[in-house]
C-alpha cells in the first residue's frame, strides 16, 4: 500500500543537463594572511557570524574580517554545530570543543571517537548534544550523562553519516542502512529501501521547517520523507539520479538544495516544479558543506578558501537558447503566467521560469528593424499588445492570430511609445497624444501634450506623462489636473494602494494626488542619472537607473538603496522594460540580461543584524548579555562589534552611543571602539549597523555596565568618615570643655582658698589674741610691741602678696611660717616649738602658698598647747615631700571650724600633682605629708 502511494507521489523527473540560470552568487574569501585555507565545513552562530572548519583550524568571519579562533593542523574538525553562544566542534582526536568568540573549552573527550569519528552534531531544544558517529551509533550527550544508541536499540546501522533535529524535538539520523527517526531516544520509524527510499546508503539528512525530512543518498539522489502524512511517503526527485552521491541537502522555503560531489550545488524550485538551477561556476566542484543563513541565503564551500553565497532573491538570465536577453526592448507578463519580451530579433514568450526543458516561443509578429517593439501589454481578454515606434501596434490574440493597427485605423500616431491596459480599454501613448482602444475602436484623447511617454488609468481618470510638460490627467467625463510643472516624466506606476506615481530623470517619485506635492528622492540615485523604469513589488516601488536602484515604500516613506543587494550597478536598459509576475517577482530587462528580483522584506527594512562580539573593561573580558559592574580603576572600555550584511559586507557602517558619557550618536566604519578614563557611573553602550543613509529606527544592540565609585567615595565610606570626624570633634570638645571646667574650678578653688586664708588670718580670735598680746607688750616692753606690730604687718603683707600666686618656693613659705610662729610664740611663749628641717637642696622646691602656715595653725587650733611638755610641731622636708607633724592632744572644747583645712589643701594639690596629700595618725602623732612640686618657673 505504501509503495503504491510512493509511486503516485513521485513529483518530477529531473533530467538536468546544463542551465545558465542560478541565483546570484557572491563569494566571500576567508583568508588569514597569505595562506589559503581549505574550508571543509561551515556553521553560522546565533549572532550571525560564520565559522569555517579548515585545514588551518577554526576560523570565524563576518564577511569582511577573518579571525582564527582555534589553530589546528590538518582537517582535524569532523563536525560542527551552532549552540546558544558560539559553536561546538568535534575533532578527529576525539574531543568535543565549545568555542565562543573569546575562548575554546573541551566539553568531552573520548578515545573511542578516534576509532568511530563523529560525523555530525546537532543540538536539540533542551540543549542536549546529539552526535552521529561512524561505527559507534548515535550519542546523546547532556550535562549529566552520555548515552549511545546503537543497532541493538533499533538503529538500522551503527554507521551514521548525518543527523538533524526536527522542530518537535525528534531526531533523524542518516545511516548506511537508511534513515531512522527517534523520539526520546527510541526508534520511532525507519526509512530504507524496504520502506520506499531510493537508496539505503543515506549520506545526509535535513529536517525542514515544514516538518518533513529531506535526505541525500549515494546513488538515489534526494528524497523527501513526509512524516506528517500518516503512512510514510517518499517524494523522489527522480527515478534515475545521475549526479552522483549527494553529500548535503537543504530545504529553504520552496527551494531544495543538493550538494553533489562533482556538479556543485543543485537547486530545485518546488513551487515551479519545473526544473533545477545549477551554477555554471560550480560545475565540476564538490560541495563540502551546505548552509542556510539567517537571511535565507544558501552557502556552500568547495574545499577552497571561498564561501559561496547564493541569494535566491535575485536571478540573472543573460541568454537562453542562444537568444541574447541583454537587449530586451519591451516586457510584460500575462494572466497565464507567461513572460513576453521583445528584442531586435522579434517577439517571444516563455513561462516565468527559465530552465533547459522550457523553450522560448517565437510569436509571429513582423519585426521592422527600424520600427522595433518598445512596449508590451496584456489585456483582460487574453490578448497581448505590442507597440512599435513607427509601425503602429500589433494585437496577438489568444488563438495566435495577429492583428495590425495603424493611424489609418484611428490610432493618433504610428510612433507609439507605450501601451497600457486600463479599466476602459487599451491606452496608447504616442508622439501625438493619447489614444484609447475599446469595443468601439480608437478614440483620440483630449490631452494637450504632443509627445507622451507613458499613460495610465486609475479610477477612470487617465494620466499622461509628457516630454517637458509634466503630467496631465483627465477624468472620463471632463475635468483634469496638471502635475510636475514642465518636467519630463518617462513612466507612470500604480502602487498597491492604487495611487499613481510619476517619475523621470531628475524628478524623483512624484505622487499624483493633488497638484503642488513635492517629489520624493529627486536628488538621489537613480534620479541623478538615467532613469529606466519603476516596478512594484512587495508593496514597494523600485526605481532602476544607471546610477543605482532605489526602493521606496509609499506607506512608510522609507527609502532604501538596493543597488548592491541586487548587484544591479552600472546597468543600462530601455525605457519601461519591467513587469511583475503572478508570484510577485519583478522582471527587468537590462544589460545584465533578464533579471528576476524577488525581494524579501529584509531588503526593504534595511536592518542589518548587529553583533556585539566582545567587551573589555580594564583589559578584562566581561559578558555583554547582563549588566556588569566593575571597580573604578577598570575604567577603559574596549568594545568589538560587527554588522552582518553578507550581500555587501564592505558597505556596513555603524551608529554608536554611550549613554552615561553623553547622548550623541556617532557614526563609524570601525569595528572596535575604545573609551578611556570613564568616570564612575552607569553606562549603556549601544551600536547598530546600517548601510546607505542611516540606521533609521533599527534596534540598538546594547551592553550595560557600571563603574563603581572608589571605596572612599562610596556612601558608606563617606558616612563612616563623617561619623569618625564627629567622634574626634566630640572627644576634642569634651576634653576642652573639661579643661575649661577644670580651670574654672581651679580658679574658684583658688579664690576660695585665698578667701579662706584671708578669712582665717583675719580670724577675730587671731586678731584678738594678737591684740591682747600687743597690749601686754606695749605695757611691758614697748620695743617688742613695735616688733610684734611689724611682724604682724609683714605677715599680712606676705599673705596679700602670695595669695595670687599658684605656687611659691619652700624658702618663701618657711620665711612666712617663721614669721607666723614668731607671732604665735608671743601668745604661747615657750609652750610651742616649731622645728624646721629643710635641707638647702630643697629650698627652691615648690609649694602652694600658706600650706605650712595653715597646717601649723591647724595644729595649734585643734590641740591643747599648754601643758607639761612643750608642744613641738615638726616641719621636715625630704626628697619629694614636706611633712608637718604634731602630737595629738585634742582640746576639750573643739574649735569652731571655718570649713577650711586639709580638704582644701588636698584639692589644690590634686590639681597640681598626681602625688597625694597624705594624712597619718600614728604613734600619737598627726602627720600631714605634702608632696613637693615643681617651683614656679
Amino acid at each position, binding site marked *: 500500500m505504501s509503495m503504491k502511494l510512493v509511486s503516485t507521489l513521485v513529483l518530477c523527473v529531473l533530467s538536468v543537463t546544463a542551465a545558465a540560470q542560478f541565483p546570484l552568487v557572491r563569494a566571500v574569501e576567508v583568508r588569514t594572511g597569505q595562506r589559503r585555507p581549505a574550508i571543509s565545513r561551515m556553521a553560522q552562530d546565533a549572532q550571525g557570524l560564520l565559522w569555517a572548519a579548515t585545514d588551518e583550524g577554526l576560523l570565524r568571519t563576518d564577511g569582511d574580517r577573518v579571525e582564527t579562533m582555534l589553530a589546528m593542523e590538518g582537517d582535524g574538525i569532523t563536525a560542527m554545530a551552532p549552540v546558544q553562544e558560539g559553536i561546538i566542534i568535534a575533532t578527529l582526536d576525539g574531543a568535543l570543543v565549545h568555542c565562543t568568540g573569546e575562548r575554546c573549552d573541551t566539553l568531552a573527550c573520548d578515545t573511542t571517537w578516534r576509532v568511530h569519528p563523529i560525523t555530525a552534531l546537532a543540538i536539540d531544544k533542551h540543549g542536549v548534544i546529539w552526535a552521529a558517529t561512524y561505527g559507534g551509533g548515535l550519542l546523546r550527550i547532556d550535562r549529566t550523562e552520555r548515552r549511545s544508541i546503537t543497532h541493538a536499540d533499533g538503529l538500522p546501522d551503527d*554507521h551514521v553519516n548525518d543527523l538533524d533535529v526536527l522542530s518537535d524535538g525528534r531526531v533523524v539520523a542518516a545511516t*548506511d*542502512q537508511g534513515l531512522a527517526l527517534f523520539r526520546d531516544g527510541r526508534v520511532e520509524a525507519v526509512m530504507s529501501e524496504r520502506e520506499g527510499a531510493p537508496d*539505503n*546508503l543515506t549520506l545526509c539528512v535535513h529536517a525542514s521547517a515544514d516538518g518533513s525530512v529531506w535526505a541525500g543518498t*549515494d546513488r538515489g539522489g534526494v528524497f523527501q520523507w513526509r512524516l506528517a502524512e500518516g503512512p510514510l511517503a517518499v517524494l523522489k526527485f527522480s527515478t534515475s539520479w545521475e549526479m552522483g*552521491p549527494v553529500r548535503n541537502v537543504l530545504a529553504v522555503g520552496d527551494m531544495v538544495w543538493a550538494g553533489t560531489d562533482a556538479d556543485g550545488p543543485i537547486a530545485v524550485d518546488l513551487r515551479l516544479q519545473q526544473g533545477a538551477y545549477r551554477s555554471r561556476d560550480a560545475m565540476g566542484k564538490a560541495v563540502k558543506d551546505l548552509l542556510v543563513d539567517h537571511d535565507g541565503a544558501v552557502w556552500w564551500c568547495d574545499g577552497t578558501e571561498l564561501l559561496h553565497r547564493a541569494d535566491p532573491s535575485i536571478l540573472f538570465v543573460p541568454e537562453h537558447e542562444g537568444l541574447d536577453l541583454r537587449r530586451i526592448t519591451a516586457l510584460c507578463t500575462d494572466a497565464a503566467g507567461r513572460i513576453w519580451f521583445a528584442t531586435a530579433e522579434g517577439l517571444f514568450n516563455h513561462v516565468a521560469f527559465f530552465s533547459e526543458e522550457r523553450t522560448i516561443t517565437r510569436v509571429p509578429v513582423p519585426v521592422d528593424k527600424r520600427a522595433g517593439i518598445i512596449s508590451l501589454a496584456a489585456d483582460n481578454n487574453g490578448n497581448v499588445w505590442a507597440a512599435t515606434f513607427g509601425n503602429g501596434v500589433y494585437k496577438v490574440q489568444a488563438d495566435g492570430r495577429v492583428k495590425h493597427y495603424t493611424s489609418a485605423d484611428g490610432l493618433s500616431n504610428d510612433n507609439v511609445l507605450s501601451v497600457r491596459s486600463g479599466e476602459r480599454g487599451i491606452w496608447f501613448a504616442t508622439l501625438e497624444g493619447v489614444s484609447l482602444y475599446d469595443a468601439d475602436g480608437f478614440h483620440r484623447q483630449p490631452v494637450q501634450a504632443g509627445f507622451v511617454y507613458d499613460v495610465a488609468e486609475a479610477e477612470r481618470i487617465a494620466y499622461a506623462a509628457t516630454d517637458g510638460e509634466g503630467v496631465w490627467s483627465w477624468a472620463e467625463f471632463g475635468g483634469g489636473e496638471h502635475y510636475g510643472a514642465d518636467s519630463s516624466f518617462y513612466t507612470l506606476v500604480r502602487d498597491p494602494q492604487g495611487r499613481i506615481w510619476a517619475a523621470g530623470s531628475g524628478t524623483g517619485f512624484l505622487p499624483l494626488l493633488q497638484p503642488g506635492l513635492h517629489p520624493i528622492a529627486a536628488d538621489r540615485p537613480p534620479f541623478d542619472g538615467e532613469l529606466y523604469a519603476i516596478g512594484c513589488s512587495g508593496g514597494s516601488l523600485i526605481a532602476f537607473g544607471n546610477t543605482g536602484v532605489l526602493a521606496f515604500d509609499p506607506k512608510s516613506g522609507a527609502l532604501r538603496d538596493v543597488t548592491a543587494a541586487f548587484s544591479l550597478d552600472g546597468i543600462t536598459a530601455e525605457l519601461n522594460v519591467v513587469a511583475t509576475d503572478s508570484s510577485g517577482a519583478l522582471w527587468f530587462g537590462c544589460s545584465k540580461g533578464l533579471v528576476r528580483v524577488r525581494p524579501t522584506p529584509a531588503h526593504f527594512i534595511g536592518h542589518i543584524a548587529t553583533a556585539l562580539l566582545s567587551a573589555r573593561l580594564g583589559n578584562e573580558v566581561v559578558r555583554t548579555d547582563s549588566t556588569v559592574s566593575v571597580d573604578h580603576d577598570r575604567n577603559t572600555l574596549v568594545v568589538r562589534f560587527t554588522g552582518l550584511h553578507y550581500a555587501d559586507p564592505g558597505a556596513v557602517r555603524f551608529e554608536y552611543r554611550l549613554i552615561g558619557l553623553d547622548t550623541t550618536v556617532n557614526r563609524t566604519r570601525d569595528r572596535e571602539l575604545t573609551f578611556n578614563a570613564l568616570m564612575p557611573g552607569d553606562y549603556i553602550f549601544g551600536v547598530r549597523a546600517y548601510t546607505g543613509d542611516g540606521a533609521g529606527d533599527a534596534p540598538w544592540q546594547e551592553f550595560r555596565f557600571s563603574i563603581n565609585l572608589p571605596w572612599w567615595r562610596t556612601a558608606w565610606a563617606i558616612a563612616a568618615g563623617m561619623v569618625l570626624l564627629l567622634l574626634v570633634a566630640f572627644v576634642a570638645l569634651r576634653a576642652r570643655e573639661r579643661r575649661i571646667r577644670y580651670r574654672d574650678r581651679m580658679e574658684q578653688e583658688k579664690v576660695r582658698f585665698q578667701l579662706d586664708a584671708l578669712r582665717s588670718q583675719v580670724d577675730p580670735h587671731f586678731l584678738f589674741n594678737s591684740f591682747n598680746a600687743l597690749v601686754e607688750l606695749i605695757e611691758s616692753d614697748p620695743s617688742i610691741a613695735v616688733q610684734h606690730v611689724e611682724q604682724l604687718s609683714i605677715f599680712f603683707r606676705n599673705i596679700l602678696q602670695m595669695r595670687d600666686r599658684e605656687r611659691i618656693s619652700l624658702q618663701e613659705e618657711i620665711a612666712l611660717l617663721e614669721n607666723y610662729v614668731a607671732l604665735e610664740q608671743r601668745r604661747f611663749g615657750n609652750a610651742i616649738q616649731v622645728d624646721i628641717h629643710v635641707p638647702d637642696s630643697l629650698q627652691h622646691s615648690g609649694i602652694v602658698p600658706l600650706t605650712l602656715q595653715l597646717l601649723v595653725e591647724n595644729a595649734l587650733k585643734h590641740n591643747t598647747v599648754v601643758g607639761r611638755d612643750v608642744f613641738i610641731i615638726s616641719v621636715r622636708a625630704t626628697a619629694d615631700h614636706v611633712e608637718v607633724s604634731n602630737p595629738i592632744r585634742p582640746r576639750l572644747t573643739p574649735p569652731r571650724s571655718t570649713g577650711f583645712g586639709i580638704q582644701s589643701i588636698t584639692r589644690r594639690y590634686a590639681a597640681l600633682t598626681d602625688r597625694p596629700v597624705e594624712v597619718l595618725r600614728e604613734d600619737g602623732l598627726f602627720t600631714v605629708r605634702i608632696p613637693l612640686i615643681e617651683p614656679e618657673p
Partner: protein
Amino acid sequence: MRAVSSTISFLSEAPLETITASNAQGTGLLDLVEHTFAVRIPVSEFVGFNSPLQREHFNENYMATAKWPSATFQGRIIEAVELDRPGTYSVRAKGALTIRGVARERILPCTIVVDASGLSVHSAFEVVLDDHGIRIPRLVQQKIAATVRVEMSMRFVADGR
C-alpha cells in the same frame, strides 16, 4: 575468507601517453558475517610499465613506496546481502582508501560472484591523484593523467575458520 588470487591494474590515459601496470601480489580478508573487509596491495610490485625507468619513477617519485609500501582499502559492504548463497551481487564497499599514506573515504561499487568454492570480487573505480597527495610535475602533466582508473579482481575462499 582469505584472498587466494588477485589482480589489480591501473590505467592512466594522458594526452601524450597511456600507462598501464598490474599487480598480483594483493592480499585480502573478508568477513561474511560482519560484512567487513581489508585489502592490501604492495605498491612496489606493480609491473607492466612502458619502461623500467617509468616503474622506477612510479615507485620513487610519485608513490614513495619506500615510505608507504602498500595501499590499503578497508571497510565494509553496505548492502545486507547473504554472500553464502551462490549468485551474482552488486554491492557497494564503503571504507577508507589509503594510498601514499593519505586516507580517503570512498564508496566503491563492486560485483561479487558467489560460487560453490568461494567468491570473486570485481571492482572498477577512479583515483584522483591530487586526493592522495600525489603531485605531478608540470613537465609530465601531458603524460600522466590526473585521474587514474583502477580495476581490481580478487578471489576469496574460506580459510578454514
